[in-house]
């Protein structure tokens, strides 16, 4: 007589302290053996009320706050915020500032994708990839340090331009990175692209269809891996992206492997954009709008001229006012379209700041990607959608 097999649906709590849930994402999984029957993501463990805090701050003071939302693409966040505020103010920043912003945004994209590639590789068993990715990321953090004296959250963007001019040696440092990076990217690809273990872990896993990607408002590499060629840089160009020569890589499989391919191809395109931007940037020149209401005067004038001292004092004590209205300028961040809905009431503090969080919507679609798959694949899928919990919970 054979003993009856015990069949029971098991509920498993994955997270919020699971090492591969990228921060504090919690998944309540119902399992039948190894198959996932349902998955309920629970978020909010990292909710810090940044949007409420921002309402108490002056406009320029919001920048360090928004950089801490999506902590892997800090400069991309602050740039999106500045663009929205500048739109309300009706400011036109100098062309040199636009080019520097493009360069910084693309370096930030490479930086974010490197962290993604490293952690994702590690989660599916390729630990060495993580070490190499973080080696190259270190160079990008050094560039941030050179630029602003801070590695993760440089707060280098300002409404109306940049905090200060580029430091000496900036061009050389960026060029050294751009020369070093593409061969290293080939090395990462040698480790993963045709690695049969990696292929087995990722191909056909976590598939999302093109229709569902649009319906769930997925953007960035996840959507492009599913065949949606939506890229804000091409569809709604900002900062003069229409004048750069680059391609938008897409795949149609919609699985984890396609997302990997898209992100690696995006890094190569970003290198191309960076080279073009770097060639356009003069080593010295205008780094902010010439508007005494918004840009503080240089320090040597503050110490020698009464008017400059008054202007400095006014800007740092009262800030500037923004005309009433609302604006949202979308940008293509490392995780896809993001931007800030800004509502101003005509005072020196924002009335409402709302970040469009691509990670939040990626988390929402997670259930769609993992139900029906195996529990081991859940790890690969969570890694592949590249959620940053600071962006999800804000």
């Amino acid at each position, binding site marked *: 007589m054979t003993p009856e097999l015990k069949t029971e649906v098991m509920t498993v709590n994955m997270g919020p302290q699971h090492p591969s849930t990228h921060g504090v994402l919690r998944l309540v999984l119902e399992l039948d053996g190894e198959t996932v029957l349902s998955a309920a993501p629970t978020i909010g463990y990292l909710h810090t009320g940044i949007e409420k805090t921002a309402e108490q701050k002056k406009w320029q003071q919001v920048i360090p706050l928004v950089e801490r939302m999506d902590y892997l693409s800090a400069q991309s966040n602050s740039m999106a915020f500045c663009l929205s505020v500048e739109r309300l103010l009706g400011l036109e920043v100098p062309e040199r500032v636009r080019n520097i912003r493009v360069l910084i945004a693309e370096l930030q994209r490479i930086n974010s994708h490197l962290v993604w590639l490293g952690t994702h590789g590690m989660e599916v068993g390729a630990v060495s990839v993580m070490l190499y990715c973080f080696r190259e990321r270190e160079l990008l953090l050094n560039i941030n340090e050179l630029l602003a004296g801070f590695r993760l959250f440089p707060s280098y963007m300002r409404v109306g331009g940049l905090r200060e001019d580029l430091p000496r040696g900036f061009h050389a440092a960026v060029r050294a990175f751009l020369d070093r990076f593409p061969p290293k990217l080939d090395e990462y690809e040698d480790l993963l692209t045709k690695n049969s273990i990696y292929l087995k872990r990722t191909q056909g896993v976590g598939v999302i269809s093109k229709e569902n990607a649009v319906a769930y*408002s997925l953007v960035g590499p996840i959507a492009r891996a599913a065949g949606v060629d939506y890229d804000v840089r091409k569809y709604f160009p900002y900062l003069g992206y229409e004048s750069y020569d680059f391609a938008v890589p897409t795949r149609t499989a919609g699985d984890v492997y396609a997302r990997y391919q898209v992100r690696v191809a995006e890094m190569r395109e970003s290198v191309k954009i960076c080279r073009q931007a770097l060639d356009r940037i003069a080593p010295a020149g205008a780094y902010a709008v010439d508007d005494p209401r918004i840009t503080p005067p240089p320090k040597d004038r503050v110490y020698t001229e009464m008017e400059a001292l008054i202007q400095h004092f006014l800007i740092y004590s009262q800030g500037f006012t923004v005309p009433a209205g609302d604006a949202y300028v979308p940008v293509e961040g490392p995780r896809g379209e993001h931007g800030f809905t800004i509502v101003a009431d005509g005072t020196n503090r924002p009335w409402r700041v709302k970040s469009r969080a691509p990670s939040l919507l990626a988390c929402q679609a997670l259930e769609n990607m993992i139900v029906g798959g195996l529990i081991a694949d859940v790890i690969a899928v969570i890694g592949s959608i590249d959620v940053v919990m600071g962006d999800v919970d804000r």
Partner: protein
Amino acid sequence: MDSDALIASLQQAVPGAHLERAASSDLHTTIYAGRDDVPAVARALRDGQDLQFAFLAEVTAVDFWPREPRFELVYLLVSIAHRQRVRIKVRLDGGDARVATVSGIWPAANWLEREVWDLFGIEFDGHPDPRRLLMPEDWEGYPLRKDYPVQIHMTPRATEPLQVTAEEFRENVERDRLTRR
């Protein structure tokens, strides 16, 4: 398609809807829609051949307290097919802050609407899962409302341990033993 043609097309698709064009400082055509027209307008925006706003970028709200109507609900939509963006705004009174859900039209609205309910207390009729999203489920109040108190000092709350004397404890155990027999 320019803003006027977009509004005309939308009005044609939903004849009875109350639509009102508003000024916009960015590349979104901005339209105020009546609260009761939201589901019809949303469906027309998604399904209209010359509209095709299949992509819901954002649902959020703004609280203009103490002004009435107090809330403004904002939907940001993208038409990938026509490279267009539109912003739909809905005015809501503070005393009756409720609107029909659009999560049946754009599945992405599910969590976005939950977030608005969580932080502003705006109810979405017919929402499949009306729970808080970011705040704990037993949280009181809606933090992003302008009349929500900030910078207050609350004494920490703790759960009192169950206080019984040694005699009561023994009695309880004894009673338990008797009933079990």
